[in-house]
C-alpha cells in the first residue's frame, strides 16, 4: 500500500469531480482506468441527468430520438491517434460517417467549385481557391491535430479571424465561406481567433478531420461511460462553493435537495462549462483570485440554438447521401437530416443548429415562433417538409460553448488545468481549454486524470511534478 494510503486517517484518497457532463465523466473514466491505488471518487451533477451537452432526446408524439445537443463527433484518425474514436470503439458503440457538401445561398446549392463558379463567376472561384490555399498553408493537418497542445504553433492563432475572411476579395465567395463555418464557430468572425476560425473552415476537408455519429444517439457514449464507472454519482447536487478546510483539505459546499452540505476532499476537479463555473463561489482568497483570472482569460461565450422537428414521413434523400446542408439563414445555419442514415425510418427528423449572434437573438422567441422561423429557411430540396411537421422541440444552449477556446493567448496546458499554484490538488477540466469539442474535453480529462493519478501515487505532500514545473516556469 502506498504512503498516501497509509495516511494516519486510514481513509482512501477522496476525489471530487464537479460536473456530470462529458468533462466530468471522461475525467472519472480516466481516473478509474489509470489509477494504481483505490480512490474514493464522487461526481456532483447539478441536474437530474448525466451527459451535459451530449443530449439525445425523444419526441412526445412518437418514440423517435433526435440530437438536442452535440450532433456529431469529430474523427481525427486520418491524421493521428484519436482517443475519442478509440474510446467509442472500446465501448463497443457503432458509428456511421456523415457528411454534407451543399451550402445553400439564396436558394441555390453550392456543392463544389463548379457550382461556386456558376453562382459567383470565375472570380468567386478563384478567390475561394486562394483562401483555401492560404488556410491550408497556414495550418497543416498536423498543426490542426496539435492545436490544443503546448507545442502548437502560435503564429496561426494570432489575431482575429475577420481579417482573414476579409482577404477573400469576392463577396459571394466570402458569403459562401461565412455560411459554411458560421454554425460550427457559434460566434461571429470578429469574436474569435484566426486559428480557431481556420480550424472550423478546415474541418470540412477530409484530410483534416471527418465526422461521425453514433446510431441511436450520441448520448449513448455518455451512458456507456457512466455505466462503467464505480464512482459515487450524486445527481441534483449543485456545488455552490469551493474553499479550504481547517485541516488543509479542499472543502465543497453543495446543495442536495433542500439541504446545504459541506464535504472535504483531497482533490477537487471542476468540469463545468464557463457559465456554471462563474456561478461557483471560491471562499479561499488565493483560489478566488486564481479562478477570477482563469475565467477572465477563458470567458468568451458562444451560443447555440437547436430546433428539431418530427415529420410525418421520411425526408427526401439529399443528393450524395448528405446528412446535412448549410443554409445562409440566420448568418449561417446547419440543417441536419437526422433520419438520413436510417433506411427504415418511418418519420423524418430535421434539426437546425443556429449559432452565434442569431442564436442569442432568437433565444428570446417563443418555441412556436422559432419553429415557424426556421421552417421558412428550408432549402428547395426539402421545402416540401414544411407541411409535414408533427412536432417540434427547441433547446437553447446560450453561453454553452467557447467562442475562443484557450483564450487569446494560450496558456501552458498545466496552467490551464491548475489555475492556482497554491492549490495543487485543485483542477479544472473543460472543452473551452482546448477547442470546444468532445475530443478536446477528452484530452483535458486525460491530462488532469494522469496528473492526479501521478500525484496520488507519489504520496501526500510530494509535489515533484509541481516543483519541476515551477522551476521550469521560473527559468523561462
Amino acid at each position, binding site marked *: 500500500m502506498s504512503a498516501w494510503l497509509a495516511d494516519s486517517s486510514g481513509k482512501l484518497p477522496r476525489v471530487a469531480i464537479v460536473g456530470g457532463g462529458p468533462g466530468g465523466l471522461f475525467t472519472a473514466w480516466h481516473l478509474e482506468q489509470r489509477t494504481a491505488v483505490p480512490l474514493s471518487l464522487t461526481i456532483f451533477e447539478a441536474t437530474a441527468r448525466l451527459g451535459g451537452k451530449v443530449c439525445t432526446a425523444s419526441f412526445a408524439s412518437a418514440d423517435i430520438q433526435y440530437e438536442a445537443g452535440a450532433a456529431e463527433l469529430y474523427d481525427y484518425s486520418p491524421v493521428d491517434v484519436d482517443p475519442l474514436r478509440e474510446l467509442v470503439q472500446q465501448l463497443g458503440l457503432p458509428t456511421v460517417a456523415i457528411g454534407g*457538401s*451543399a451550402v445553400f445561398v439564396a436558394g*441555390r*446549392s453550392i*456543392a*463544389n*467549385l*463548379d*457550382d461556386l463558379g*456558376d453562382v459567383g463567376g470565375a472570380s468567386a472561384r478563384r478567390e*475561394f*481557391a486562394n483562401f*483555401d490555399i492560404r488556410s491550408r498553408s497556414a495550418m497543416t493537418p498536423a498543426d490542426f491535430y496539435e492545436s490544443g497542445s503546448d507545442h502548437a504553433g502560435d503564429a496561426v492563432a494570432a489575431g482575429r479571424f475577420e481579417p482573414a475572411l476579409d482577404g477573400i476579395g469576392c463577396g459571394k465567395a466570402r458569403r459562401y465561406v461565412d455560411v459554411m463555418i458560421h454554425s460550427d464557430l457559434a460566434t461571429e468572425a470578429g469574436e474569435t481567433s484566426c486559428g480557431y476560425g481556420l480550424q472550423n473552415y478546415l474541418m*470540412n*476537408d*477530409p*484530410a483534416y478531420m471527418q465526422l461521425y455519429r453514433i446510431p441511436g444517439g450520441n448520448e449513448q457514449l455518455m451512458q456507456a461511460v457512466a455505466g462503467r464507472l464505480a464512482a459515487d454519482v450524486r445527481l441534483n447536487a449543485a456545488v455552490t462553493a469551493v474553499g479550504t478546510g481547517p485541516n488543509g483539505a479542499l472543502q465543497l459546499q453543495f446543495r442536495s435537495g433542500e439541504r446545504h452540505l459541506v464535504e472535504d476532499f483531497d482533490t477537487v476537479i471542476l468540469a463545468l462549462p464557463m457559465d456554471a463555473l462563474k456561478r461557483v463561489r471560491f471562499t479561499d482568497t488565493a483560489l478566488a483570485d486564481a479562478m477570477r483570472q482563469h475565467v477572465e482569460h477563458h470567458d468568451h461565450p458562444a451560443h447555440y440554438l437547436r430546433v428539431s422537428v418530427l415529420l410525418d414521413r421520411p425526408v427526401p*434523400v439529399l*443528393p*450524395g447521401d448528405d446528412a446535412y446542408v448549410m443554409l445562409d439563414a440566420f448568418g449561417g445555419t446547419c440543417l441536419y437530416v437526422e433520419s438520413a442514415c436510417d433506411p427504415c425510418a418511418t418519420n423524418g427528423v430535421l434539426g437546425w443548429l443556429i449559432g452565434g449572434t442569431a442564436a442569442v437573438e432568437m433565444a428570446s422567441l417563443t418555441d412556436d415562433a422559432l419553429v415557424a422561423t426556421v421552417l421558412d429557411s428550408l432549402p*428547395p*430540396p426539402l421545402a416540401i417538409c414544411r407541411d409535414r411537421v408533427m412536432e417540434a422541440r427547441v433547446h437553447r444552449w446560450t453561453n454553452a460553448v467557447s467562442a475562443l477556446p484557450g483564450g487569446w493567448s494560450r496558456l501552458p496546458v498545466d496552467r490551464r488545468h491548475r489555475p492556482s499554484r497554491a492549490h495543487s490538488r485543485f483542477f479544472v477540466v473543460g472543452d473551452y481549454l482546448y477547442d470546444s469539442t468532445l475530443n478536446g474535453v477528452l484530452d483535458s480529462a486525460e491530462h488532469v486524470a494522469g496528473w492526479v493519478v501521478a500525484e496520488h501515487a507519489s504520496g501526500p505532500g510530494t509535489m515533484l511534478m509541481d516543483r519541476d514545473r515551477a522551476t521550469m516556469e521560473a527559468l523561462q
Partner: protein
Amino acid sequence: MIVTDHDEPRDAGRIPAGLPADASLRRVPLACNEELLMLIVPLPDGNDGESAPNPVRITETVTAWAAEVDPRDFTSLPVITVPLYGCHVVWKPGQAAVVGPVSRLELLTTALSDFASCEGELRQLEQRCVDLVATVEEDAPHAFEFEGRAVSRRGTLASRFREAVAVRGRLAVLAPAAHAPPVHPPTLASQLGERLRDRTRLAERHEFAVDRAELAERLYEACGQRISEFGIAQRQMALEWAIVVLLVIQTALLVVDLLSRGAAT
C-alpha cells in the same frame, strides 16, 4: 433466369422513349480495352434539376435503361446511381447514363470515363487474381518442399509467378486511383469520382485483390526458391552419385580381377 428461344437480346444501343429529343448515345473507348455505352441527357442550364422538364421521370427512365438486363448476360452487376445537386449519374460495367445541365456534361462524362477505366481494369485484375488463387491450393505444397516428380511443373509455376508479379504490378499502378483521398475543395468531377468509388467499394476491392495477388506472389516466389534449391541439390547429388557409380564399377573390376587370379591359381 430461364432463357427461351423467343428471348431476344435487348437492344442497349437504343435511346429509351420519354427522354428529351437532344438525348444522345455515345460509345466511349476505355483505357482498359473495354467500351462504355453512355447515354447523355442534357437539361437546360441554370437550374438545379428541380425545374427541369420532369427531372424525376428522366432519372427514373435512365435508371431503368441501365438496369434492364440482357437475358443472356449473366455477368451484369447492380446499377449504381449517384444523385448530385442538379445532376444524376447511373453506372454499371459497360453502361452509364448522365443527366445534367449542358455546361456540366463534359465534366461528368470525363469523370465517368476515368472511373470506368479504373473500375474496368480492376475488374479484369480481380478475375486474374481469382484464377491465380484457384491454383494456390494445388501448388502450395511446392512452396514448402519441391520433389523430383514436380520438375515438369517448373514451367507452369514460373509462368504463374510471372502472372502474379504482373497482376501485382498492375494493381500497384492502379493503387493511386483506387485509394485517391477526397479532393478538397471538391469539384463536380471529384465528387462524382469519389462517390462512384465509394459505391463500387473500389478501395476495398483493390485491397482484396492486392491481398490475393500478394498471396500468389509469395507462394510462387517460395516455389521458385524451392525449385532453385532443388536444382542445386540435384546437381550436387548427381555428381556424388556419378562418383559412387564409378567407384562401384571400379570395385567390380577389382573384384573380378581378384577372382580371376584366384581361379587361375
